[in-house]
């Protein structure tokens, strides 16, 4: 009994074991539908981790994530159109997303709280209209609009995309952990508590928030690009859609913001909901919206917050710390 608890606190070994198991699944002959659900889980998790970094740890309620996802996707598609390798396209997509984050931060970071939220809301919407008007590549289509197929997507097997997804999910978790343990993380914790006092104690609030924003853009962009490798076509209405944001908010709120484990649990629930609500596609938003409202009102700290309050968790924690002494 004690040994198990000790290893739970250790954390690393079971985690690595889990990753190995996941990596082996395609080879072990897991059914394609499983792999696809897991792929979605990996991609959403990467994005949710980044959203957690922004909202839970930096105090930035960003509704801007679809912009990074869509831009990375389009960069990839345009790049591949010219026959260039997809891996490079992915990287380029992430870079474009990061540059865009830098650009957008100029107007948007002057705002805070709700202003920031709405400012970031405008950005993907504006991009959506832009890509509805503008066809960057290919011949003109009646009605305009930039919907494209990703050339070279068929070169990727399901396993291939799956492993890319696993990779970005792990990368996002590592990234989050590294940031939180770094000086950036300390600074962010101070900012999250109180913007102004953090600023007056010498922390460059703007720069730290910018770092978070750009980091989230890179990883979210990568995850987006991988998504489009899987989906193999991109079009403006879904690329910049608020549904991305909805998934992230749902995952973050249900799992618990500001905790490392929160996004994981939240994403599990979100993907599970996808699966469950597939039959009720017509009212899935009503259900998810209602869930969001109920959870925010009754359990605002999400499931991780809830668990932390339960006696079982506190008991286990006590045992573990006793063991350490």
């Amino acid at each position, binding site marked *: 009994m004690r040994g198990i608890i000790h290893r739970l606190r250790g954390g690393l070994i079971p985690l690595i074991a889990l990753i190995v198991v996941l990596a082996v699944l395609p080879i072990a002959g897991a059914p394609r539908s499983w792999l696809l659900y897991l792929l979605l889980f990996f991609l959403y998790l990467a994005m949710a981790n980044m959203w957690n970094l922004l909202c839970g740890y930096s105090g930035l309620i960003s509704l801007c994530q679809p912009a990074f996802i869509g831009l990375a996707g389009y960069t990839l598609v345009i790049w591949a159109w010219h026959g260039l390798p997809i891996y490079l396209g992915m990287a380029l997509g992430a870079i474009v997303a990061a540059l865009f984050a830098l650009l957008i931060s100029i*107007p*948007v970071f002057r705002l805070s709280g709700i202003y920031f939220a709405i400012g970031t809301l405008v950005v993907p919407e504006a991009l959506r209209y832009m890509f509805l008007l503008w066809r960057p590549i290919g011949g003109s289509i009646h009605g305009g609009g930039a919907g494209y197929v990703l050339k070279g997507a068929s070169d990727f097997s399901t396993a291939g995309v799956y492993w890319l997804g696993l990779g970005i999910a792990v990368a996002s978790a590592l990234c989050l952990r590294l940031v939180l343990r770094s000086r950036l993380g300390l600074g962010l914790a101070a900012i999250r508590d109180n913007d102004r006092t953090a600023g007056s104690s010498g922390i460059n609030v703007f720069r730290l928030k910018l770092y978070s924003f750009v980091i989230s853009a890179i990883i979210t962009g990568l995850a987006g690009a991988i998504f489009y490798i899987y989906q193999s076509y991109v079009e403006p209405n879904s690329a910049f859609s608020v549904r991305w944001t909805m998934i992230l908010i749902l995952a973050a*709120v249900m799992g618990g*913001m500001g905790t490392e484990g929160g996004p994981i649990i939240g994403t599990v629930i979100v993907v599970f909901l996808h699966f469950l609500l597939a039959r009720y596609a*017509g009212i899935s*938003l009503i259900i*998810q919206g209602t869930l*969001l409202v109920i959870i925010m*009102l009754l359990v605002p700290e999400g499931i991780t917050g809830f668990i932390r309050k339960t006696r079982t968790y506190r008991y286990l924690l006590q045992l573990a710390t006793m063991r350490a002494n």
Partner: protein
Amino acid sequence: MTLQFLVDLSGPLVMGILLGGLYALIALGLSLVFGVMKLINVAHGDLVILGTYFGFFGMTGEIFGHRLTFLGIDPIVSLVVGMPLLFAIGFAIQKYLLSRAVQISMEAPLIIAFGISLIVQNACQRLWTPYSRGLTTSYALDSFNVGVFNIPLVYLLDFAGALVVMLFLREFLRRTYLGKAISAASQDRGAAQLMGINTGRVYAYAFAIAMATAAIAGVFLGLTFPFTPTSGVSFLIIAFGVIIIGGLGSMLGTFLGGMILGLAQTMGGHVLNELGLPGAATGQYLILYIIVLVVLAVRPQGLFGR
């Protein structure tokens, strides 16, 4: 050459001002709520569209794909039912959801409003299909002339509607007990309570009034533009732009802010046309969004802001 230039401008000028009326009308509710409760309701656009669909239902009787032909009421007339309905919905949202959210955290009202937004959008999709609709009344296609331009009659109605609602709200806030209580609660909530004002209930009334305004805005919106269940976001952004330009919480400021935004849009569109650039309709939304971003970047407290 200058005379022609001016004559050419008169069309977009008038259109901008009149259209600005619609934008102001949509924004008035948002402005009221922000002025009183310091809350930006991100579901506002979707609730306006809900109002539009109520008008649609009254007009066509269509629901779940069936048609109740005994309806067929002019959308403006149907406001007799639409306004109390949205009033009640608004009252409930503030009293039971948002008032609790405010006590939980800073992000909670935003997230809950987001949830409401999803629910409303999906509900409208189920009830009235995702296809693009319009409130095509008999007068919806009438127009009148200004110079060489044809201006739709509904634009004039939009302007008139906005003016009436704005004046009504302003006088209500100034002259009635409840209106004064709302102003007081927005200036100092604690002191208002010491006056014997039940601020929780006053906030609920304020939100409800804002929603009733949204019902009106929804009907006029439907008369002016085609709409879908997801049109709400665009109009939330426009409304936000209006109150940023016009100054938060001021009814008159919101009204003027609407004019300014409308003018910016039509003038910008005119310039684009002159330059031969394509994409009139979609492009105008884009212009609006860019204007909003620019205003946010340059002067978030607005032109008339405190």
